[in-house]
């Protein structure tokens, strides 16, 4: 690659990054329910673990993350993501997270502190970072500026 080609290449890489950022910022990030009635925006969490499963369901996709502590004890978190249609418009699908893969998830805990029926800790996902650094399922109904 000569210098000019390299410059063009870098320029296009930058334009991709800029466009991708704008595109992400541009899409609706909303839910059918009041975020504040269900989740606590002050109780932020970051968990690192492995994907147990992803359910591509409405009105929100859910994924479960197994987190192992130093003693080998596993705690499972269930994260609410955006709706499948909102995720699909950003290019993600039911295969964007694979069972067994390592992820880091940023999110918010549910207000009621009650586990889901399967015993998992209930939370809302702000975004997932895969082991290779790629980010998926970005956005949360917490981004909703609409105070319902």
């Amino acid at each position, binding site marked *: *690659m000569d210098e000019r*080609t390299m410059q*063009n*290449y870098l320029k*296009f*890489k930058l*334009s*991709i990054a800029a*466009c*991708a950022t*704008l*595109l992400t*910022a*541009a*899409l*609706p990030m*909303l*839910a*059918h*329910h*009041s975020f*504040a*009635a*269900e989740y606590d925006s002050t109780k932020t969490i970051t968990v690192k673990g492995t994907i147990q499963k992803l*359910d591509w*369901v*409405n*009105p*929100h996709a*859910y994924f479960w993350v197994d987190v192992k502590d130093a003693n080998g004890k596993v705690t499972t978190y269930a994260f*609410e993501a955006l*709706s*499948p*249609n*909102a995720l*699909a*418009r950003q290019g993600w699908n039911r295969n964007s997270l694979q069972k067994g893969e390592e992820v880091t998830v940023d999110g918010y805990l*549910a*207000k*009621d502190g*009650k586990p*889901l029926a399967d015993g998992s800790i*209930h939370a809302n996902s702000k975004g997932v970072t895969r082991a290779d650094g790629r980010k998926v399922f970005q956005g949360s109904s917490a981004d*909703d*500026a*609409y*105070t*319902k």
Partner: protein
Amino acid sequence: MTMRDVGSVAIALAVAAGMTLVPSKTSAQDPANSGTQKGKGGGGGAGKGKASPTLGPAPRMPDGKASMQGVWNPANFAFTGGPYPLQPWAQKVLDERRANLSKDDPEGYCLPAGVPRISPFPQKTVQTPDLLVILEEGNIHSYRQVFLDGRPHSKEDQLWMGDSIGTWEGNDVLVVDTTNFNDKTWLGGSAPHTDKLHVIERFSRPDLGHLNVDITIEDPGAFTKPHSFQRVFNLMQNTDLLEYVCNEFNIDKDHLVGK
């Protein structure tokens, strides 16, 4: 240029094209900047942003009427249309709902958002000389039939989405009159209404890329006077509605605790 470069160019162009195809919820708030956004959002406000592209002149139907057809994304979903001129009892209800962080909003239970409230998802307008149909991706996949064939309002009442009939003012403005509501839906920003709700929407298309809806709401049961605001939609090109089946796994309803 190498194949890798070609790939990068293609991706950059595709992404850039995508930006025009999926207009942002903030990008078409140009009406706010040009002074045509008549209200302030009770929750989100009118906001700021750059104009989304006009994309070309407004299209017309074969009968010469303006075409309202397309897949439309709300330019500013956060704009609630409020604050509404509420009677004291209705203001008290609104205050209680807001204190509870809107936990009892019917929409959280996968019930219709009603009219003229919208969901954060796109809607598709299909038009014939006798009928305008609005298909909603969100709002539990509900639909509105706007009859343009001259019939009077239906005798059916207590309706979630109301009964809509439309008449043309010239070839450019479609006036949609909706009545026969129940009192179960919430207005934008969680304000209540009664079954006396009467919604008049004036649809117009200033260019290919935009749909303007000038809305006037009357409700002698809950309002002190009629209230008007404008909602703007951006055209989404080369896409269509996606599936959204709210009741599939709505576990939210069991965890909406409010405060």
